[in-house]
């Protein structure tokens, strides 16, 4: 039975890898730049290890030797034969990949559980002009005007949170830091998150990651989707605010004022991870600013629905032959 679990885990990882690489190749070949379309295609890739792999694992035909030897394009089982000093490399690879998946999951879960991602502090009454601005921007984004919470903190914080009752949280530090156009652009960005129900989606993504915590490719894919959601909020937020430059400027100001990496998680080996995480965050902010400054919002690509439908059908068909 442990062998069968190892087979399932290995298959899930390979399915995620094949799905993710195929989708990345298609995004480039079809030159898809719009975050909504990129998100949809990446969701299909994430569905492969989540739904397709377990369903395929239930099919007895695929468990038989004849399938592995005659039909499978790739069978992880064949790698059991590769041995070094009498030890099969296959279980070693599976173990290392599972450890990597778990590490990537914990890297995000531990800060979430400890609450270090969100800044806490005493609340102050929201200025009426700010509440009005938030309500206008929410309507423009297609969301119901959310409650506004103002924190008496010098730390620059501006985010939305909450699944059932989403709210916008802004600190005095952020209000002092941003000029009116930057503040409007940053708030518009958060309103798009609310309109898209991104707080709920991010929890669902976390649940998917928990289910696939052994799968490093799924962990990376989920993180990429979260970044894509930020780009979507950038594009639509800048469109609502009517100023892409202001949003880029707000991003840079908030990034710098938060010390470069916000509040980095306290983790085992946290010191070793601090610099790579800081660089990754810097790179992410840099890329988002470049997008905002260099390009306009990417337009819809032709045949987007047909492309999505084809990928939904084609990827499981390919993975049917990958065991």
């Amino acid at each position, binding site marked *: 039975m442990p062998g069968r679990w190892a087979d399932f885990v290995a298959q899930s990882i390979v399915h995620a890898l094949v799905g993710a690489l195929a989708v990345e190749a298609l995004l480039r070949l079809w030159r898809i730049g719009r975050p909504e379309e990129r998100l949809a295609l990446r969701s299909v890739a994430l569905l492969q290890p989540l739904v397709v792999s377990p369903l395929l694992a239930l099919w007895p035909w695929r468990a038989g*030797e004849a399938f592995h030897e005659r039909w499978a394009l790739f069978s992880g089982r*064949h790698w059991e*034969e590769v041995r070094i000093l009498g030890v099969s490399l296959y279980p070693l690879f599976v173990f290392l990949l599972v450890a990597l998946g778990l590490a990537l999951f914990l890297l995000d879960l531990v800060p979430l559980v400890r609450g270090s991602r969100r800044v806490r502090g005493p609340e102050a009454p929201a200025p009426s002009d700010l509440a009005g601005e938030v309500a206008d921007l929410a309507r423009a984004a*297609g969301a119901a005007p959310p409650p506004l919470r103002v924190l008496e903190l010098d730390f620059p914080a501006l985010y939305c949170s909450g699944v059932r009752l989403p709210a916008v949280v802004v600190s005095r530090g952020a209000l002092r830091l941003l000029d009116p156009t930057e503040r409007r652009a940053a708030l518009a960005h958060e309103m798009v998150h609310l309109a898209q129900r991104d707080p709920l989606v991010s929890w669902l993504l976390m649940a998917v990651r928990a289910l696939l915590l052994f799968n490093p490719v799924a962990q990376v894919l989920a993180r990429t989707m979260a970044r894509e959601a930020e780009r979507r909020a950038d594009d639509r937020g800048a469109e*609502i605010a009517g100023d892409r430059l202001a949003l880029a400027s707000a991003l840079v100001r908030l990034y710098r004022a938060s010390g470069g990496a916000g509040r980095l998680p306290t983790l085992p080996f946290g010191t070793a991870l601090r610099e790579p995480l800081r660089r990754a965050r810097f790179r992410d902010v840099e890329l988002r600013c470049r997008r905002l400054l260099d390009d306009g919002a990417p337009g819809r690509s032709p045949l987007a629905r047909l492309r999505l439908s084809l990928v939904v059908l084609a990827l499981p068909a390919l993975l049917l032959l990958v065991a």
Partner: protein
Amino acid sequence: MSARAAPAPRWRPLDLWRTVAGLAVVLGGAAALLAAVDAVPSWIAGESRDVRRVAGVEEAERRLRVRLLLPGYFPDSIAWPPSAVRIAAGDPGGAALDFEGRRGGPHMLLAQAARPGAVPARLVPAATVLDEGATWLGGLRVPLRRIVGPDGHVWRELVWMQKGRQVVLRSRGSVEEMMRMARTTRDEP
């Protein structure tokens, strides 16, 4: 101002072509890459792609879903367990067990079909027949050959059918030893 979705652009035949061709290229490339990666273990082992090395006799039986035919008599001059167990899937499929002598070096090969039929040729290395005779085994006349194996040594080869499954026994031992092993070969434990 409201953030409405931009209208869908009109598509041209070139877009449809790009969509289909792009998908075909990616899926075809992925399939080719997967098949190439799948062939690496066989390539490392120096076997054809559909021949697999397995850990032991039990693993071969599990994967072929058949009990292997094994000799009840096993001379002291041959080392147990087999030094290599190879299987070939398909119909009838088969298994080959390579044995070394107690003093080292290849000593015996026992290859068999997994189901009624002939042993898959890829399980039995090519050899040059020096001479061919016949002998009686279980009331049947079966060929007994002297061959030169791929290692350059002279081997003896006995081929017979058991329950419709072809069995090939090659050995560097004596004919008497081979015959005794062949007579005691069974699929029961």
